[in-house]
């Protein structure tokens, strides 16, 4: 048999073994990773609102918008706030910048937090703590990007922009 073909087959078999091994490791680590991500998200939600005062439910978003946390007035269908999980591509190819953006029903921004990212250490990572000066989700004219950290700034701007595009519709009954 052709030697090159045999070598290719060896590489293919090695790849399959490695893939199987990774699947096994993923089986054990994936639930823990999800649990850690949820822990960070709920800790972040609690930074914006006292969750005891609301009826909390979750709705699956679309496109860049992931889970939307719906905070309703206790015992009613009146939506008081929406907390969007939104992502945009930053510096890292393997992990998007994932943000939680809390928007009140008057479209004011209650708060925001980067809950997952893999931006480079130093400036790229430090920027996630920055105050981007967004007070109304439909008005990003005052958005304060950070010079020299353009890619991460753009990703965060895109997160706000995506939420801004749909927040009014969601509060207007589109959810």
């Amino acid at each position: 048999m052709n030697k090159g073909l045999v070598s290719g087959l060896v590489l293919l078999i090695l790849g399959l073994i490695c893939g199987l091994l990774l699947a096994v490791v993923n089986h054990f680590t994936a639930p823990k990773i999800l649990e850690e991500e949820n822990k960070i998200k709920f800790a972040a939600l609690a930074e914006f609102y006292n969750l005891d005062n609301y009826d909390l439910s979750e709705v699956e978003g679309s496109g860049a918008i992931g889970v939307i946390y719906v905070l309703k007035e206790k015992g009613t269908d009146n939506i008081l706030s929406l907390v969007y999980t939104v992502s945009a591509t930053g510096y890292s190819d393997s992990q998007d910048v994932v943000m939680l953006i809390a928007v009140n029903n008057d479209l004011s921004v209650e708060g925001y937090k980067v809950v997952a990212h893999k931006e480079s250490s130093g400036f790229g990572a430090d920027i996630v703590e920055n105050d981007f000066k967004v007070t109304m989700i439909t008005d990003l004219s005052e958005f304060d990007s950070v010079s020299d950290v353009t890619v991460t700034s753009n990703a965060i701007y895109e997160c706000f922009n995506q939420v801004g595009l749909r927040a009014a519709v969601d509060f207007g009954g589109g959810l």
Partner: protein
Amino acid sequence: MDQKANFLKGLFKENPLFVALLGLCPSLAVTTSLENAIGMTMGVFFVLVLSNLIISLIMSNKFLSPLVKPVRIPVYIVVIATLVTIVEMVMNAFLIDLYLSLGVFIPLIVVNCIILGRAEAFASENKPIDSLIDGIGMAIGYGLAIMIISIFREFLGKGTITIWQSLQIDLVFIFDFLKIEPIAMFVQPVGAFLSFGLILAIITAIVNNVSQTNKKGA
């Protein structure tokens, strides 16, 4: 070469960072705190030791060796990438703060010259047990080197030494005594190069001094 010399060469004579100057980019990037350096060392140790062992097992097998030789570099990359992905998944699941802190430099271990270099230069031509010891020595040598750089940088840049999470040695009083602030530049990228250059100069001076003394003695 006996096993002791095989182990020790990674620590001193062939230290991957201070002698071979390999894998500098991630090493300088993550050395902003000792905790980061310890985390990176754990990752590199796991990958380097196991990749050396696996590659040596494959290449020393009389049946597999001739089949793998033409595609050995892709084989090394598949093995190393698998091990790095395991490290990444485990860190993401169980050491989330460290995972976020090390960021993109965990997957970049795949292309770390030290690991691929040891696979090609040593593991592919030596017995599994020798390769295992070589991997352990090199990984510890690498770890010690980045820990030295990180202690130097974190102390001068922040006045602290973070061993693990909240376990931190606060040395700000030294700066208070000297009536100066910690020099934040040392935890910035420019500080990485300065620190590395300074430490390398000190080590080179010591090595030169020792070798001259030995020559005179002889």
